[in-house]
């Protein structure tokens, strides 16, 4: 029988039944308690006649319930669709309809729940998590009614996966309303990337990570799976808004690991004094989600010289991770994203598909068992990025003489803000809904903390008047917070090429 994430978790449960696996908001959950909930979710779905491959949405903040649901869905043979809890109804409905989800596990206090329940497919089954009384248009089941059933026993509660190339999870990434991008990952994809990361981070059951990354996001997803696979522990804090609180928690919980994106480390460097906290047990820290300034890496590692600092690179389409820079080469290869992780092959190619010479810039292409099956129900988009089993990342880079990879830029217009990839088209299609907008272009402009923030440049129709706040209010209603343009410019025309294509690079200078 092929290896699956559920089998990896099951092995940890057998080895460490009484060990704490999740610490969250004063709750301490053991492996056996987590497993109990996983089995209850699986049995509930089986009793509801889930078919192999049925999609199940999870709209829940990082919590024991998120993890139990995710693994329960896999155990029942379903496909787990972790959704961005910060997204607005527009995106959530779009994603749930796109993957034709049959169940939605949702926090009963989610601010968009009322809106989405009114327009969702009436066939969907809602499972409410939390004490809040449901006033939904759709009928729903309560989480407590599922997990407080008598103890579930029997080997049949875990559905056998005979083919590890079957879909196990979908992660929605930077698409548009018309073309959502659902990165579809198989059981093999998830296991391959999990085992590879465990290997190079040298994770073991003694590891306790403080996690602030959302689990619906591929980086957070990988933190969750890797630590469960080794019998480690997850200390969950759902925000870095108050960084002192996070550091205090790291000290109190005696954590050994921490993962962040560049803005995480920028905030810690600018608003905390790391030396005020006892972080002596921290063994590793990881960084991914976009380029971190080498000077910041140097500063951070000089503050915590005992910590192994892993600079990494990846894509959701590769499950999560593609490369890492071994910490013992960090100083020598500062600015590099390192080498391919175990099980992955990387090549750099020119536009004709030929591998470039050392030092020359080309596109990063990757192959390995972690490369996604494709975008859900979108074979055209899949063919654009996966050709002959090679993932075309759209990222430009070169190899140095020792085979280390240095990122040089991106070949697409995608905006990267605070580790989130955002399609400019998604912003533009929302703004174009406003009366009086003739044309709009969204671009990323440089930002010290987030890498990029979004600027929208608008051309309004003659006689029409539009204020910045109206544009932002419309975006706020329809887009997650991180997608709202920070800057709104009004111009008489957009700069274009002779063929009429908007010259986005000319808009990226911030006024």
């Amino acid at each position, binding site marked *: 029988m092929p290896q699956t994430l559920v089998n990896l978790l099951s092995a940890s449960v057998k080895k460490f039944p009484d060990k704490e696996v999740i610490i969250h908001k004063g709750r301490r959950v053991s492996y056996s308690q987590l497993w109990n909930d996983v089995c209850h979710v699986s049995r509930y779905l089986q009793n509801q006649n889930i078919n192999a491959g049925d999609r199940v949405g999870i709209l829940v903040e990082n919590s024991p319930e998120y993890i139990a649901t995710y693994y329960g869905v896999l155990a029942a043979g379903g496909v787990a669709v972790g959704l961005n809890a910060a997204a607005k109804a527009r995106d959530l409905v779009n994603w749930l309809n796109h993957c034709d989800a049959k169940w939605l596990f949702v926090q009963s206090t989610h601010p968009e729940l009322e809106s989405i329940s009114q327009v969702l497919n009436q066939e969907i089954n809602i499972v409410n998590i939390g004490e809040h009384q449901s006033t939904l248009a759709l009928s729903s089941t309560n989480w407590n009614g599922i997990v407080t059933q008598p103890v579930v026993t029997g080997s049949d509660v875990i559905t056998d996966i005979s083919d590890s190339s079957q879909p196990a999870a979908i992660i929605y990434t930077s698409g548009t309303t018309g073309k959502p991008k659902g990165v579809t990952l198989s059981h093999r994809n998830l296991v391959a990337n999990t085992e590879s990361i465990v290997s190079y981070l040298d994770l073991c059951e003694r590891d306790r990570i403080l996690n602030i990354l959302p689990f619906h996001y591929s980086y957070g997803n990988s933190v969750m799976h890797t630590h469960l696979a080794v019998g480690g522990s997850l200390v969950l804090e759902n925000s870095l808004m108050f960084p002192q609180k996070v550091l205090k928690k790291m000290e109190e919980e005696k954590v050994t690991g921490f993962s962040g994106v560049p803005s995480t480390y920028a*905030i810690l460097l600018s608003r905390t004094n790391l030396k005020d906290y006892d972080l002596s047990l921290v063994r590793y820290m990881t960084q991914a989600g976009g380029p971190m300034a080498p000077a910041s890496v140097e500063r951070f590692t000089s503050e915590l010289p005992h910590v192994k600092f892993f600079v990494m690179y990846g894509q959701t389409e590769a499950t999560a991770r593609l490369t890492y820079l071994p910490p013992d080469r960090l100083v020598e290869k500062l600015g590099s994203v390192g080498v391919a992780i175990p099980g992955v092959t990387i090549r750099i190619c020119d536009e004709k598909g030929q591998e470039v010479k050392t030092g020359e810039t080309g596109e990063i292409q990757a192959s390995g068992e972690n490369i996604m099956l494709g975008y859900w129900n979108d074979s055209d988009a899949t063919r654009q990025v996966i050709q002959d089993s090679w993932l075309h990342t759209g990222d430009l880079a070169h190899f140095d003489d020792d085979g280390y990879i240095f990122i040089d830029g991106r070949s697409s217009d995608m905006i990267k803000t605070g580790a989130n990839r955002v399609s400019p088209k998604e912003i533009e299609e929302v703004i174009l809904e406003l009366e009086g907008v003739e044309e709009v272009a969204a671009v990323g402009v440089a930002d010290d903390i987030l890498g990029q923030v979004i600027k929208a440049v608008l051309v309004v129709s003659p006689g029409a008047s539009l204020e910045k706040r109206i544009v932002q209010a419309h975006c706020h209603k329809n887009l997650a917070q991180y997608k709202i343009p920070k800057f709104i410019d009004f111009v008489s025309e957009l700069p274009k090429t002779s063929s009429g294509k908007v010259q986005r690079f000319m808009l990226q200078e911030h006024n």
Partner: protein
Amino acid sequence: MAVEQIVRDYILENYLFTDDQSALSSSDSFLEKGIIDSTGILEVIHFLEDEFGIRVEDEEMIPENLDSVNNIVAFVANKQAS
């Protein structure tokens, strides 16, 4: 204008993009309600420092001081008194 109204107007305009006062309760947790994120709070701190002539020390960056309009009002009053 009272500190509470100044802070409310700033949050409404910059994070909720509205002048509808009913969109925000002064006791709402910015974190729990998803109104402000980890970079937004840095902007709020800059605003408080500019507007009220105070300095927010790193160790003062805690929920008890900054996680709602009411908490900010009390924090600013304490800072101005000291």
